[in-house]
């Protein structure tokens, strides 16, 4: 038994070493930094809980928390609905499935910075395709990224363009629903709507929960789009207009790498870690009785 332990650890040692050096080590160090005042220029000074107390009374932190919550609460449900809708369409016996699947999936495998630059053009209030299109049907488009009210919806809109990954997961789940269950329901007199809500939806609920949690964790850490699309014109202005796209990770970035306030940035990062863990745990708990695992597991 002892030899087996040793051999096992030896086999997994590449991961253990990488994890300790590249993940656990920096995490522990950032936890230490979060209790210090650190500017990279001088050695960290221990300040106890001061950074966390600063977070507690920092209006900009609450602003970024609100922005992030707005983005997640609007983007995650819309993304789930759109990805499920696309998957349902692709689950129908249609020709050209591969073409459509590729089309819907393509944006998801494109680099986020490239996507951001592209959408910066599309969302241009004057020349952008979006507002030109809206003008063509007689609507006056908003100022999008230049407007405090529309900047976050613009980023949500862009995020909907990258639901391809979630769509593939939904599609795989839909194709895994046993045909005999739907047939049995049909024979029992259930119409298409009833079959969807009573058979299909429960059967794919684990995939939906997975999409929800991954989507939520991703949305709470939104950074690249906001950084590229709101700071391009004038470095330092990221998060505008008037902090309406200042998300938590962007705030952490600005504190750490523009103001070199490493201690406070580390404390913010740990606060975000706690928030994400709490949200995931909550989603897990609430969904427990609503998600159906075939075979009665969990």
């Amino acid at each position, binding site marked *: 038994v002892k030899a*087996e*332990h040793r*051999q*096992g*650890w*030896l*086999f*997994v040692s*590449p*991961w*253990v070493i*990488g*994890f300790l050096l590249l993940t656990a080590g920096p995490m522990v160090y950032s936890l230490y930094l979060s209790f210090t005042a650190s500017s990279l220029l001088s050695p960290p000074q221990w300040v106890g809980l001061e950074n966390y107390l600063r977070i507690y009374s920092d209006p900009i932190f609450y602003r970024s928390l609100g922005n992030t919550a707005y983005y997640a609460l609007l983007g995650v449900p819309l993304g789930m609905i759109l990805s499920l809708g*696309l998957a349902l*369409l*692709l*689950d*129908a*016996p*249609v020709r050209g499935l591969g073409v*459509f699947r590729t*089309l*819907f999936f*393509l*944006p998801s495998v494109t680099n986020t910075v490239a996507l951001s630059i*592209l*959408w910066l*053009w*599309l969302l241009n209030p004057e*020349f952008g*395709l979006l507002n*030109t299109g809206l003008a063509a049907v007689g609507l006056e488009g908003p100022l999008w990224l230049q407007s405090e009210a529309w900047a976050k919806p613009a980023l949500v809109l862009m995020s909907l*363009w990258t639901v391809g990954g979630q769509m593939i997961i939904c599609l795989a789940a839909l*194709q895994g629903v046993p*045909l005999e269950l*739907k047939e049995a329901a*049909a024979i029992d007199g259930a119409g*298409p709507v009833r*079959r969807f809500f009573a058979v*299909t939806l429960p059967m794919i609920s684990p995939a939906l929960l997975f999409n929800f949690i*991954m989507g939520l964790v991703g949305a709470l850490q939104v950074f690249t789009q906001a950084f590229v699309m709101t700071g391009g014109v004038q470095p330092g202005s990221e998060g505008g207009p008037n902090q309406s796209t200042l998300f938590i990770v962007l705030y952490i970035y600005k504190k750490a790498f523009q103001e070199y306030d490493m201690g406070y940035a580390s404390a913010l990062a740990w606060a975000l870690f706690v928030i994400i863990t709490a949200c995931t745990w909550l989603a897990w708990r609430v969904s427990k009785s609503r998600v159906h695992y075939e075979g009665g597991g969990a």
Partner: protein
Amino acid sequence: MNGLNHGTATARVLRIGVVYAALLALGALFAVPVLWMLSSSLHTLPDVFAQPYRWLPDPLQWQNYVRAVTILPVPLFLWNTIVITAPVMVATALSSALVAYGFARFRFPAATCCSACASRP
């Protein structure tokens, strides 16, 4: 495989028609930004701002592509990417097999916990 195969022939054709219409409409929404990017890559800068937008300008600015790879040392950038990516790919493939074998074949304390940690995206 789903409820689309039920009902009368007319109803079936109607339903599949609705599915195609929805797929084409959504497909267009997903395709237009990509097509716009392709189209604008053949424009001069003033042409990009032209109102109304012309999807195929005259003449097509193919030299944009020449400029894109010559204005900056793009071959060097590609080489840098390869230098980073190639060793990572090889090392990931090798170490993943090794580590997966370790988690799959050996029972040792903390194995379950570690494999859960290792499999996070």
